């Protein structure tokens, strides 16, 4: 009965949403603020990647909120899963062998991933990608050994340090603008030559902060989830 109702209403919802969607014409975006941004972003922000100029410039406060959400989620997760110490205990009890293929490939991949991640972060204002994407790759780099090499644990103190300071750096850059008489999160510095690595003012700095923050949060999150789940499996046995 419940399922039937749910199905019926899901069908209804789908139909109604399609009715709504059908009133749009594809590719006919009104481009109200979009056009304004496309016109002015190069002048105002100076980043080759216009999405970045939106993410860090026009809607920088959203990005701040976003990393705050990630941070909150990480904090809440560790609150739910307990203290960091538990993961360490769990890893001490691990007795599994280190698979040599996995181990060596991880050792191979780690620096590569690290480099790739950093590259994507640093070039966020020029090419597709940026702090978030790069941050995820960084987190992947740190998470791989955890999966592949048993007994390996992540340095949570380090993560806390990175996540704290990178988040703070983002806000401090914003506050610097505020205290120098501009608006909060207003891009600083000269724009430079568009398309160059050192351009777009403070945007690359912000993206580095975001990248490190995201990387740290995600590694912390993943480590927490991984650690506690192996611990739980242990407890069930």
């Amino acid at each position, binding site marked *: 009965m419940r399922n039937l109702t749910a199905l019926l*209403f899901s069908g209804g919802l789908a139909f109604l949403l399609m009715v709504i969607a059908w009133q749009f014409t594809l590719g006919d975006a009104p481009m109200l603020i979009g056009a304004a941004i496309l016109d002015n972003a190069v002048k105002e922000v100076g980043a080759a990647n216009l999405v970045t100029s939106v993410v860090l410039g026009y809607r920088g406060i959203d990005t701040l909120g976003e990393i705050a959400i990630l941070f909150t989620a990480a904090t809440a997760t560790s609150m739910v899963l307990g203290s960091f110490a538990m993961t360490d205990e769990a890893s001490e009890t691990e007795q599994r062998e280190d698979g040599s293929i996995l181990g060596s490939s991880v050792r191979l991949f780690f620096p590569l991933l690290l480099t790739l991640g950093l590259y994507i972060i640093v070039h966020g204002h020029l090419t597709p990608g940026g702090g978030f994407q790069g941050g995820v790759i960084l987190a992947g780099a740190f998470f791989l050994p955890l999966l592949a090499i048993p007994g390996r644990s992540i340095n949570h103190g380090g993560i806390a340090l990175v996540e704290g300071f990178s988040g703070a750096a983002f806000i401090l850059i914003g506050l610097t603008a505020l205290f120098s008489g501009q608006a909060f999160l207003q891009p600083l510095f000269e724009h430079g030559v568009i398309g160059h690595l050192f351009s777009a003012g403070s945007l690359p700095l912000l993206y580095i902060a975001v990248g490190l923050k995201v990387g740290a949060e995600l590694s912390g999150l993943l480590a927490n989830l991984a650690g506690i789940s192996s611990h739980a499996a242990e407890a069930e046995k």
Partner: protein
Amino acid sequence: MNFLDGLLILSLLSVIVTGFAQKLRSAGWLSSVLLGLQCLLLMGMAGLAYGSPAVSSSFSVSVLGQPLHWQFNALSWFFALITLASALASSVYAAGAWGEDYRLQGGNPGLLQFALNLNVFAMLLLLASGDLLSLFVGWELVSWASLLMMVLAGGAAGRFGLRYIVYATAGAMAVMTGLVMIFQLTGSFQFADFAAIAPSLSNAQVVTFTLLFVFGFGVKMGLLPFHLWQADAYAETPGPGAAFLGAISSRMGLFAMLILVIQLIGLGRLINIEVPYSFFSLRDVLMWVAAFTIIFPTFTAMRQNDARLLLAWHGIGQGGYMLMGLLMVNPLGSAGGLMHVFNYASYQAVLFLVVTAVIYRTRTADLNQLGGLVTRMPLSFLMMLICIIGLAGIPPMNGFVSKWLIYRSLIVEGMPLLFVASVVGTLGTILSVYKLIHNTFLGQLRLEHEQIREVPWSMMIPMLILSAVVFITGFLPGIVLDWVASAQAALGIPVLEHTLGGVESPSGNLDMIWICSVLFGGFAVGALVFYSGNKSRRVHQLDNYAGGHFLTADDRYHYSNNFYAGLMHHIGHWYRGTFQWLESSLGSAISLLSAATQMLFNSFHPALFLLLAATLSLLFFAG
């Protein structure tokens, strides 16, 4: 700073003082003194009752741009007099021996005095209201203050108090709806503004307002479908509190209804509105509500076996007379209604106090456990006798005058059916008060009550004074009729022409001085015959025989259980508890609804409702 300011401030002070002095031994006397001072201040405004213009309080508050102010006119003064007098009587009663006893029983007499003062303050505030908003504030304060009084006793009282507050809140909500409707019409809460637009209201609006206000204020009065809360709640209130509440508290509903329905909307409008498909006008409907309010509770009272319940049920019925009288255009009727407020308060207070005195001595109010106390507590008996004569509306007591006025106006106005209905109600009253005095004071004395004595003077004096009032205002009704006439004038309805001894008007004449003289002359003749014959012999109360056999005190020949068995044989099947049934059905329905609503919160998958809501609201807009 005029007398009204003084009165209100003193009243507020009394609340605070008695609130802090609860634990004091002398809290009762303190409270009595404070109430006495308030009475004096009220007397300072006595000019109101003899034609002085209304007194306005010199302070006013403005809330949300709406001024609240307070004033006293003859009507307010009349009600305030009753309030303060009954409060003073109750306070003195509770201050002395009764309070000590109450403390020993585990009660807190200081708290009772506090509640009394709080009620008085709330009522004065209501009576002094100078606009609709202050009226409502006062109204709510009265409601909640009387809740405090009702739940003092704890136990079942809490349950009854809760029931009361549900009714009261429902009423308050109706009143508030009416008030905000008025506000939306006039843009203010002033009486004058509403009175100004009242003639131009459409019939539908008049009906709405009338129904809202009659329901809202009628709940407090115990008008018929909403009367269930009253008897239980009053009966469980500690004795002096019950006397006070019974005497005046419900009349606040009448007061507010007078202002809104009779003064502001006007009876003329009600009479002109026909109920569709009938020959009734809206006014007639209300009068029949009043008539049924007289009959049903009175006959319910007859079946009660607890003296307090019997009195409390009565109180509901008497409210019907007042409303019926006041709904009459004739000055006789409205004067009767107003005077009945005064009269009823005087004897109802005494009756509750006497019953409390009986409880104080015997520890029971069960009419099957009492009897023959007349020799033990003769003064109490006398006072109860005076008051039940008043309650039954028999000369020479004051109750006769007000009921006569009402009956007379019913006849003059040509409403025979209503007249019959109210006479039937009076019949019930007589039967039930006879049951009260018979089962308490007459008949066989119980052995365990042989040693009890009359109650102490601290309890006796308030009762004596009030009984004297019952008698004097019966003998010289002109005293009260002066006030009543001024109150009528303040309400803007026709004024009764009266003399010191009664009424002298084209609609009818009544001279109580003459009636009383004849009556007491008759009594004197009877007494003369009795005492000159000198054939009587005094025997002990337990010295009885029947059919040639001596009866010991162990033989129960006091006929109390299933009183009026013969009558009940005929009318007993009419007692069906329909209203109780309606009330409990309503309660069950709410409970059922509540269970249904809780199902949402107990559903194991609340996200389903999100899906439902999303689909339905999209359907609403996009579909």
